[in-house]
């Protein structure tokens, strides 16, 4: 489906098709295509058709059908949906039916968006390849023997495959941007607090974000416009006003100062580096002023992240104890047996590894040496960015050191997998907005993503750069 939010709106308002027809086709297509990629875990057929009818009724009554009218949206399965199974990619929640909707889902449906299904992901969003899902890996639509990236691999694959026009993912260490780059779509991690996390299953609360994915920057920005803003159900959601993102997309970036962090070009695969530098060349021709900058603490980000994120995860995942969330094992034994056996059977290897590491770094004798130390390093990483943004308007960098790798290629080496998150983790640690925008293919035909980072609440600048690049390169 080559549709955009704007083309669907035009089709609906000019009566080329109804939302009902369009949604039925989108659902049929998504279900038909799904065996190729395994992008969806659950389809929301009944709910989608009801939402489509509501859009048609509004149009018939001459009312505004909303900014996302009739747009098929895929939602990552760590975001809860009332009455619709939400698995978090875990065997533990295979049959979990949430009793409420996430705020982001309520907002996108209120704007006329049609949630067509829930997408596959790494278990509890822990992974960089989507191979940690209890329901099988997702295959990259660009190259079916390769991973789509993770953890929002299903959402990125759904958009790349064209079965959804936009999607919601979640990002804690790169889980929206990295799959977006691997699948050749745009993916946005907004400022921490910009989008309510009410209804986002908690992984690492000081790092978790909900973010949009789309074929184009414009559509990703339009989805963010709808879901951003204060929500009284999430005390960490920011009350700063949401600017008009689309209005700022003029294509003019003349005079914008962009920083190239030298630490992000060390250890970069040459086929990826070439595409990034070519994209920087395009931005220069558009009138951007590019200068080298340094983010000196980058090399410490992975270590700090895997302490902080796992410490928070070990606490957040304590709730899956066999009491409230559908799955219980060890029913013949004691309460302690029930907890331990439920968790041992329910969690996959990566979740266990992270729960163990997080519990270890928080345990007596290690708390200061690991956890507090990591938080101090986090301050240094955030300061690196604050310093950089005194001199530049945005930072451009790679998203991932290499393009999509083969399924199975990295599963046996967790540290190598963690290290691949090097360019995305720092943005989450600092809480700044960052996104991936497609910047061409490697000689082997695999998509590469250009990362654009801006200062807190400065999504507008980030979108301007991405949109201008897209216009100039297509």
């Amino acid at each position: 489906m080559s549709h955009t939010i704007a083309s669907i709106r035009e089709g609906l308002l000019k009566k080329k098709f109804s939302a009902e027809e369009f949604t039925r086709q989108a659902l049929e297509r998504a279900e038909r295509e799904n065996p190729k990629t395994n992008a969806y875990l659950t389809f929301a057929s009944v709910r989608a058709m009801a939402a489509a009818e509501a859009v048609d009724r509004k149009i018939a009554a001459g009312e505004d059908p909303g900014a996302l009218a009739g747009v098929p949206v895929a939602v990552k399965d760590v975001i809860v949906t009332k009455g619709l199974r939400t698995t978090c990619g875990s065997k533990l929640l295979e049959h979990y039916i949430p009793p409420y909707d996430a705020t982001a889902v309520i907002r996108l449906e209120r704007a006329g968006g049609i949630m067509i299904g829930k997408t596959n992901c790494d278990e509890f969003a822990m992974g960089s390849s989507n191979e940690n899902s209890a329901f099988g890996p997702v295959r990259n639509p660009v190259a079916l023997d390769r991973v789509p990236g993770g953890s929002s691999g299903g959402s990125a694959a759904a958009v790349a495959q064209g079965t959804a026009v936009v999607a919601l993912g979640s990002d804690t260490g790169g889980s929206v941007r990295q799959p977006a780059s691997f699948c050749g779509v745009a993916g946005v991690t907004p400022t921490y607090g910009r989008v309510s996390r009410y209804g986002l299953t908690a992984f690492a609360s000081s790092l978790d974000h909900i973010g949009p994915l789309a074929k184009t920057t414009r559509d990703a920005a339009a989805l963010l416009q709808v879901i951003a803003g204060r929500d009284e159900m999430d005390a960490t959601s920011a009350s700063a006003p949401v600017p008009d993102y689309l209005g700022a997309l003029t294509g003019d970036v003349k005079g914008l100062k962009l920083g190239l962090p030298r630490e992000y070009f060390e250890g970069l695969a040459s086929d990826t580096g070439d595409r990034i530098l070519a994209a920087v060349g395009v931005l220069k021709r558009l009138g951007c002023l590019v200068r080298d900058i340094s983010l000196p603490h980058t090399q410490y980000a992975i270590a700090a992240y895997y302490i902080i994120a796992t410490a928070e995860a070990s606490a957040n995942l304590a709730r899956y104890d066999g009491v409230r969330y559908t799955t219980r094992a060890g029913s013949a034994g004691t309460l302690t047996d029930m907890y331990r056996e439920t968790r041992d059977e329910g969690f996959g290897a990566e979740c266990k590894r992270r729960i163990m590491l997080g519990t270890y770094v928080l345990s007596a004798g290690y708390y200061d040496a690991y956890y507090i130390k990591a938080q101090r390093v986090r301050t240094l990483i955030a300061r690196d960015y604050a310093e950089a943004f005194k001199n530049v308007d945005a930072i451009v960098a790679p998203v991932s050191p290499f393009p999509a790798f083969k399924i199975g290629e990295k599963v046996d080496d967790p540290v190598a997998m963690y290290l691949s998150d090097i360019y995305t983790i720092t943005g989450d640690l600092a809480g700044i907005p960052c996104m991936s925008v497609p910047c061409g293919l490697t000689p082997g035909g695999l998509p590469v993503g250009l990362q654009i980072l801006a200062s807190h609440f400065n999504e507008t600048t980030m979108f301007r750069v991405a949109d201008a690049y897209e216009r100039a390169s297509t």
Partner: protein
Amino acid sequence: MKITDQEVRRVAELASLALRDDEVERMAKDLDNILSHIDKLNELDTTGVEPMAQVLFESDETATLREDRERPSLSNSEALANAPVSGSGYFKVPRVIER
């Protein structure tokens, strides 16, 4: 080795995970690799650097409180709907106290 099998078993107990023997061995190896990488942080002198627990913005944009007013919450049956075992309006678990 930075972490022994015995420590892995102790941490598993703290985390309420029942690891099998083969899992313990694999876990010790994986954690050892990760902790070796994490040691990198000791290269940095962080004396006097404040720990950052959360992203906080200069103005009071986060940590705002909502108005305290009554509103409907989940019903008892909705709250229990996903419980593996429930009864009489409660979550049921194995007996904790022996009479």
